């Protein structure tokens, strides 16, 4: 029963949602509003799961004095300090909470993502070393699209921005459309598997 009841809930709600999509009745709208209000009430508690997971992973490292456990202590300190600063001083502009966001979280977040520019350059070099016709086509398309977006491309030749635009509007569109059709069919098949109780991995392990 520990697995059957949740499965019955998914199948019942799932078919009610299918009906809601096709039947524009006020009862159907009321069902949807009820589901949204309940989901919104459930969602904040998911954060507790995240906090518990982070605390357990790093707490275990600290208690076992695992290698580099000091960094785990720093993570937990930053978690508690940032969270507490939001509750004590508020989250509006000019508070310590916003200072942490502007001078700690935001600069590190954008730097972390900008590191990807170097990793992507390294990946491009490796792809170029593969010397296959497909890898060459990929890189040529990438170079033309990149040059087409900056003034340098126009300075080299007026054909570069035009070719870049053609790549985006013709072969790229065909590729995206073909992939979108495959993704759409895959999503439909997976949703049907969940709806019919064939796919049950979301229930997790155990009895």
């Amino acid at each position, binding site marked *: 029963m520990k697995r059957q009841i*949740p499965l019955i809930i998914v199948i*019942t*709600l799932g078919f*009610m949602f299918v009906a809601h999509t096709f039947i524009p009745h006020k009862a159907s709208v009321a069902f949807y509003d009820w*589901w949204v209000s*309940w*989901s919104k009430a*459930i969602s*904040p508690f998911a*954060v507790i799961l995240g906090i*518990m*997971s*982070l605390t357990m992973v790093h707490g275990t490292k600290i208690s076992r004095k695992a290698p580099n456990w000091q*960094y785990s202590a720093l*993570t*937990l300190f*930053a*978690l508690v300090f*940032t*969270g507490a600063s*939001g*509750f004590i001083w508020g*989250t509006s502009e000019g508070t310590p909470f916003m200072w942490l966001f502007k*001078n*700690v*979280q935001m*600069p*590190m977040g*954008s*730097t*972390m*993502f*900008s*590191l*990807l520019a*170097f990793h*992507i350059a390294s990946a491009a070099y490796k792809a170029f070393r593969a010397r296959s016709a*497909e*890898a060459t*086509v990929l*890189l040529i*398309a990438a170079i*033309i*699209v990149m040059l087409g977006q900056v003034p340098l491309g126009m300075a080299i030749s007026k054909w570069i921005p035009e070719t870049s635009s053609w*790549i985006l509007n*013709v*072969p*790229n569109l065909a*590729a*995206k*459309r*073909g*992939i979108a059709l495959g993704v*759409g069919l895959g*999503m*439909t098949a997976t*949703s049907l598997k969940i*709806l019919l109780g064939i796919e049950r991995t*979301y229930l*997790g392990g155990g009895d």
Partner: protein
Amino acid sequence: MFETISNLIAAFLTLCIFSFLYKDNPFYKFAEALFIGVSMGYAIPLVYENAFLPFVYQPIFLQGKLIILIPSLMGVLYIFRFSRNLSWLSRYPIVFGMGIVGMGVPMSMHSSVLVQMRSAMLPLDNINTALIFIGTVTILLYFFFSKEHKGVYGKFTNVGVWYMMIGFGASFGYTVMARISLLIGRIQFLLGDVLGLIK
């Protein structure tokens, strides 16, 4: 003075992250640990203010909608995810959200399949429309694995591969541009806001 100190702290943390380009080191590990903690800590008060107060506290305690106690208690069941004996209780908040897949069947069929098919079925009155049609069909043939990609069929699927490579190249180019613009932003911060070398 306060702004200068703030900028210096942000610059130090930026350089700590960039130090990873040399190799993994204590400065990067320090910044990484701090980043994870601050990011998670940042989410807690925001979720409390934007989700807990308006959708749980206010309906129950200010509007007297006691029925909201049921989903709230269901949300609390998430905690049992880490319990060996009671983890089955955490399935209830998960399956309540999973019910939306029923809506996903007709919606994904409509938005990703029917709309795309309608856009693909245009009169082949110019070379670009014909090229898009050929590309879409050959890519779909490539993803049809019930027939071996050999002979004439293999040549068609190969055309699909070339179309996809051009598409991936375009996406790759856009991703590089986005990351480079972030990098430019960080360099402008270091050289402009911190060192005052550029205006």
